[in-house]
């Protein structure tokens, strides 16, 4: 027993000083957390770094610009809380082409106005004639003015038609010039996109979205939603509904996500709730594999530099195995303790709201340590066995690769665990010793209420498997470590198992 402790102490001391310990404890978790957090971060924040300029060409006469701006401001913001979208009315009023046409229109309008004035004058003259029945040659004058009025009316109608026609021309000039202008702005990156509302927008609801980037699905989806609201409101307004009623009808809703728990309801953040346990699984995995990896490499190194023979001559194989498992397991615990302390510090620092990370409890920390111990003993014994059996680095690498894949498998099923931590499939998978620690470490925080039966069951299964694996490891270890040269066949191993 004393030798076991001394070996444990030696292994612990020589490993904790190594660079790989520092790396596994501090650097890898940071890298992993970053890897998980980065896509989430990018997805959430990358398109919203600065305000986007959106042009609007509004031919609909619905005065959409200000409504659109208001609505967009209500929903979308940049990180710095300023509006995400800035609406810019694209109007070609200063363009010469348009101005010329406008001038012409104004002339026609002037003509129409003067003819209208003339018409009105004749009309009033006739009214005067009608009312003053005693005036001289009234009849003749009436006939004369009638003819004049006919002429003027005709001309007025003609001008009206011309004006109408010219207005259409002007509209299309307006649209053409506006689009031309908007395109220039878009190409020169002064606009991020622009919207065109045609004359018939109110009726048809057709909107054109122009941008350089064909993949603005997020924007299109947002505008569609906002505009739908605006046009609906306009349509209702046109039906002469009271604005106060309208406001009431259109009061925006806001969706908050809740997880149902027994003690009551809590708001929850998808990312933190999912990635928290996922990071925990990863850390568990890291801890189990880095410390059992140490076991593995420690055996391999001692085999290759022949210290194993010296050790075996001074201590029994059981002591060596036990010592290594104890020492390196303790190293893993130190690693976990460091992580738990860091987590505690982060929680204290108030980076997250308490509710979001309420699974960071002492109980869960306890289970983390418990399942680490079980996982480590299990995988450690397996690694010791394979370490003593293998003759070269290459074999061992393959073995550890396979074991790693098996052990990280639960992380791949994390979404399933999240949606239903107590589903039959997940429960059954948790009973498999290779997967048990990872699944349980995910299930315990996610399922809210502890499933005591499963915890007891998995612990029992793990303890039993550990005993079996350690017995096997013990039988193989001594014989295998001193074997030289030849690769050990399975039948050979079987013979040792039966013999010893």
């Amino acid at each position, binding site marked *: 027993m*004393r030798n076991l402790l*001394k070996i444990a102490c*030696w292994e612990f001391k020589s490993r904790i000083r190594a660079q790989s310990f520092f790396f596994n404890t501090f650097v890898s978790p940071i890298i992993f957390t970053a890897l998980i957090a980065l896509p989430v971060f990018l997805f959430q924040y990358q398109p919203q770094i600065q305000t986007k300029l959106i042009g609007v060409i509004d031919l609909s006469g619905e005065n959409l610009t200000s409504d659109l701006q208001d609505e967009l401001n209500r929903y979308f913001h940049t990180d710095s809380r300023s509006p995400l979208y800035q609406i810019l009315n694209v109007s070609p009023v200063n363009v010469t082409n348009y101005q010329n046409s406008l001038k012409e229109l104004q002339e026609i309008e002037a003509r129409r106005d003067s003819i209208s004035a003339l018409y009105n004058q004749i009309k009033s003259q006739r009214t005067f004639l009608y009312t003053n029945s005693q005036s001289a040659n009234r009849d003749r004058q009436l006939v004369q003015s009638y003819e004049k009025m006919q002429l003027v009316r005709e001309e007025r109608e003609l001008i009206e038609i011309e004006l109408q026609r010219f207005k259409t021309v002007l509209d299309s000039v307006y649209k053409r010039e506006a689009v031309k202008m908007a395109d220039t702005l878009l190409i020169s990156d002064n606009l991020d996109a622009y919207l065109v509302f045609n004359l018939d927008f109110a009726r048809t609801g057709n909107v054109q979205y122009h941008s350089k980037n064909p993949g603005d699905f997020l924007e299109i989806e947002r505008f569609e939603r906002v505009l739908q609201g605006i046009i609906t409101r306009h349509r209702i307004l046109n039906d002469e509904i009271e604005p106060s009623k309208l406001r009431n009808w259109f009061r925006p809703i806001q969706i908050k996500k809740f997880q149902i728990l027994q003690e009551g309801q809590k708001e929850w953040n998808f990312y933190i709730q999912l990635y928290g346990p996922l990071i925990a699984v990863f850390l568990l995995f890291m801890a189990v594999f880095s410390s059992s990896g140490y076991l593995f490499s420690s055996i391999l190194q001692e085999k290759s*530099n*022949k210290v194993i*023979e*010296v050790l075996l*001559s*001074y201590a029994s194989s059981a002591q060596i195995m036990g010592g290594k498992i104890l020492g390196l397991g303790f190293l893993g615990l130190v690693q976990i303790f460091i992580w738990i302390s860091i987590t505690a510090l982060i929680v204290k620092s108030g980076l997250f709201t308490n509710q979001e990370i309420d699974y960071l409890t002492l109980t869960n920390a306890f289970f983390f340590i418990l399942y680490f111990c079980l996982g480590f003993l299990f995988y450690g014994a397996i690694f010791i066995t394979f370490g003593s059996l293998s003759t070269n680095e290459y074999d061992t690498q393959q073995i550890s690769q396979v074991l790693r894949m098996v052990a990280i498998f639960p992380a791949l099923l994390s979404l399933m665990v999240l949606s239903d931590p107590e589903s039959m499939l997940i429960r059954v998978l948790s009973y498999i010793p290779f997967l048990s620690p990872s699944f349980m470490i995910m299930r315990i925080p996610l399922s809210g209420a502890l499933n005591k039966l499963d915890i007891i069951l998995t612990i029992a299964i793990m303890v039993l498997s550990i005993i079996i694996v350690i017995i096997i490891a013990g039988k193989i270890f001594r014989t295998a470590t001193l074997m030289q040269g030849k690769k050990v066949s399975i039948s*050979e191993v079987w013979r040792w198992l039966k013999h010893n």
Partner: protein
Amino acid sequence: MDKNLLEIKNLTKRFYDSLVVNDLSFKIKGGETFGLLGPNGAGKTTTMRMIMNIILPDEGEILFNGIDRQKTKGLHFGYLPEERGLYPRAKVLDMLVYFGTLNNLSHRKAEVEAIRYLDRLGMIEFTDSRIDHLSKGMQQKIQFIAAFLHDPDVLILDEPFAGLDPINQVVLREILEEYRANKKILLISTHQMEQAERLCDHICLINNARVILDGKMSEIKRKFRENAYYIESDSDLSFLHEIEEISILEENKTAYKFTMIDKEIPVSTFFSRLKGRAKIRKFEIVEPSLHDIFINLIQEKSKV
């Protein structure tokens, strides 16, 4: 202390169906240096590993003072494995202390002993060096210290002289002498016959997994003595050819090696034949060298 005795009885070990040690028996008494000799692959290392309880024999017993090896507890064994192994990244003193404490030394005692031996082997200035920064011979010395740091009752050294310079060979022999003087059991294997000859009191020669020669060094020498004599003079000795009672084995003008043809005739007859014809500077009985015995025996066996 006087009855320190290591008995090997009918030891047999197979590796993958090949017999590596076959029915091997010998006894090692405290206070004698026991040499296990034999050609490569004879099974020396395997035997030593079985004595060290590193591998288990298939058959046979290893008894220390009548107690089975597996049941001997608290007994100190020191072992220098054939393939030297140290932790390359560890510091010299740390590692020695570790090995010392594994053998029930207190931390302090292990430290003191380690420093004492380091000093004795002229390595005191490397106390805090990393093992892999030392030369091969220095590492070898560290390995020695690891083997006898804890003052073991049974010291087993597999090819201890390989890689050591003459000065350190002398230091090592001195240390081994001390062990012998303390009536401890000392088992060494070596391929250097001069070393074995100089060091061992008892020889066990094994070949092809079997013992072919076992006995005290002096007895073996007597047994293989050819009754040969060596004579050396300042002047020419060619007249020795005229003497009938002797047959000349080797000649070299002033130095001759010969045997008496009739073993019953005492050497004094030879001297009477000399009659002062030459001034004798040296005359001695020729001892057979272990080297010759080894080669003769192994070749003889392989011929059969």
